[in-house]
């Protein structure tokens, strides 16, 4: 269904969407992220890989300030989205999260209808002036997440009644509906079977044409299949960052090499 060559498809645009400078994250006394510098490109899928507890999810959650909800988390350094520091005092995290959507590890649709799940974001952000516009956004988002044909006849049914893979695509549709610029995905396929995983991966590849996608994954095969850029995290350090092909074929760092060849992690 998928071959590694797919990832080689040309990266068309090279605009820097997100740039992180000397980012440190502390959970209480634990230094979880150590001095991470990274530049994430627009219209590109960037994968964060690394063993459990290496800080890749923590760093991902810094990009839309989800760590703000954790009382003991403390962040230093700078993360710029389109050149603007998202940790500036004037930035409202709520506004930021409308621009930087997120899909979580476990599918977590609201216990509402499929329609309301997708329409929630546009509603609270006032993206639709009337019902027709809202209907359009919902349809576009569901088409965008390759779910429309499966659910178009039962939009009133609860989102929680869908299968795991469908739920995750519903969550992607929900994230896409707020018209974000960046999509963060925290191990979106870890709770899915191989077929659902394939569908979501295909979707991620399509999303690349409109968004900057950052995906955290445990599976190196998945990183190789879907991403153009890969960052390898180890014990809170960003060890290596580069073209996905280079990371997997000629890693510069011995730790990267050890991880991708299965000797650590």
């Amino acid at each position, binding site marked *: 269904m998928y071959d590694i060559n797919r990832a080689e498809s040309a990266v068309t645009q090279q605009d820097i969407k997100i740039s992180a400078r000397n980012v440190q994250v502390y959970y209480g006394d634990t230094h979880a992220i150590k001095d991470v510098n990274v530049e994430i490109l627009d219209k590109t899928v960037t994968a964060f890989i690394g063993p459990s507890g290496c800080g890749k999810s923590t760093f991902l959650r810094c990009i839309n300030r989800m760590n703000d909800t954790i009382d003991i988390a403390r962040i230093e350094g700078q993360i710029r989205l389109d050149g603007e520091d998202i940790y500036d005092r004037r930035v409202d995290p*709520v506004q930021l*999260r409308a621009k930087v959507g997120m899909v979580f590890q476990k599918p*977590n649709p*609201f*216990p509402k209808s499929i329609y309301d799940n997708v329409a*929630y*974001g546009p509603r609270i952000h006032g993206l639709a002036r009337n019902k027709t516009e809202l209907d359009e956004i919902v349809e576009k988002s569901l088409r965008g997440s390759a779910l429309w044909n499966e659910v178009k006849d039962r939009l009133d049914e609860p989102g*929680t009644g869908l299968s795991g893979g469908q739920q995750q695509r519903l969550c992607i549709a929900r994230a896409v509906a*707020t018209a974000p610029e960046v999509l963060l995905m925290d191990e979106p396929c870890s709770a899915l079977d191989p077929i659902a995983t394939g569908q979501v991966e295909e979707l991620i590849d399509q999303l690349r044409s409109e968004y900057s996608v950052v995906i955290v994954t445990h599976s190196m095969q998945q990183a190789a299949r879907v991403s153009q850029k890969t960052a390898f995290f180890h014990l809170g350090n960003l060890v290596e960052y580069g073209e996905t092909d280079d990371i997997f074929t000629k890693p510069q760092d011995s730790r990267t090499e050890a991880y991708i060849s299965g000797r650590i992690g």
Partner: protein
Amino acid sequence: MTDLPMPQSGAAPVPKSSLMVADTRTRRRNAAEKRFRLYGAGAIGVALIALVVLLTSIIGGGAGAFRQTYLSIPVALDAETLDPKGNRNPDEMSKVLTLSYGKVLDRAVDAAVGSSEIEITDLSEKDISSLVSKEASAQLRNRVLADPELVGQTVDVNVLVNGRIDGYFKGRVTMESAAADANTSPQQLMLADALKEQGMLVTRFNWNFITNPDASDQRPEAAGVGVAILGSFYMMLVVLLLAVPIGVAASIYLEEFAPKNRWTDVIEVNISNLAAVPSIVFGILGLAAFINFAGLPQSAPVVGGLVLTLMTLPTIIISTRAALKAVPPSIRDAALGVGASRMQSVFHHVLPLAMPGILTGTIIGLAQALGETAPLLLIGMVAFVREFPAAPPEGLFDPASALPVQVYNWTQRADPAFVERASGAIIVLLIFLFCMNLLAIFLRRRFERRW
């Protein structure tokens, strides 16, 4: 109790065992499990027996309160006595005292018994007229004042009979006990039997028990829980209006918004402690704060409601927080992830999911408050109240009674007829509690959603 593995000594060869024969360890484990099941069934059995005993004793003692004996006779409402001015003006007529109605009633009873061809032995006219309750003349007066046109006519009246005669038909009073009782005599009871045969004494469902106010020591047959039900209802209204919004708002703030630091820890511990404070302490607090300091009236449902609010708040806060905690964090993440503010995520997603738990906790708290007696005794709700409180909000400041206090009150009285009334009031209280619990279960089912 536990099945820790026995230390294996050395390399003792383990003999090959068959699956068809249970080994010692398995047998012991199975026996332990069987014993535990027996304990459990035994505990449930004891609880069930206690419940059955409780219900039979209360229903056996209290069912009588819902039936009442009346003397059904024609009463000639003499215009001379009841409306001396003859203008049928209720204001003028209200100057006629209950005593005069008593005389009218006495005459009617004597006449009815006289015309019934019952042989009367050893009974004076006074003995015969004392068959009816002392309350009956007041009831007749109320009826006439409500409809002055009745004066001058002869109307059929169901006259409340005296508690002893009523008790005779419910098996509480016997010929032997009547012989030793100064308030009645076996002859009276025999007359009552004869009247029953004639169809003049009828026993029917006692709506008055539910609608009447309390009555004095001498008139148990007229006592009812009307004022107590209304008073309890007003207090529940106050508790509902105060405890629910304050409790739910406090728990949402503590659970979802408050920073987790030493202060919130202190508050949390203190809320748990408050839940364990004996209810009478809240009564003393209410007496000091609301009556002595704030100057609110005694015996008023508003004070009772405030005290019960204080008492119910910890229960509501604890159960609401538990319900909020039970909402999976992934829902909060999902809402924040699409750019909802903290408040939107709570009010759009977390609160609806926590609703069944919050409602259940609230109703259980209310039920607990409904049955609470001790704090109400201290704020004067124990007073003897005959007047119905007015409609809220003014009525909240009128004196009233409360159901559990009424039960306590009646059990203090000498006449055994009040024991029956007290059990009857307990049945009313239990029915209310039962309905509230049913409502809690219904709401839980109705709002429960899976995620």
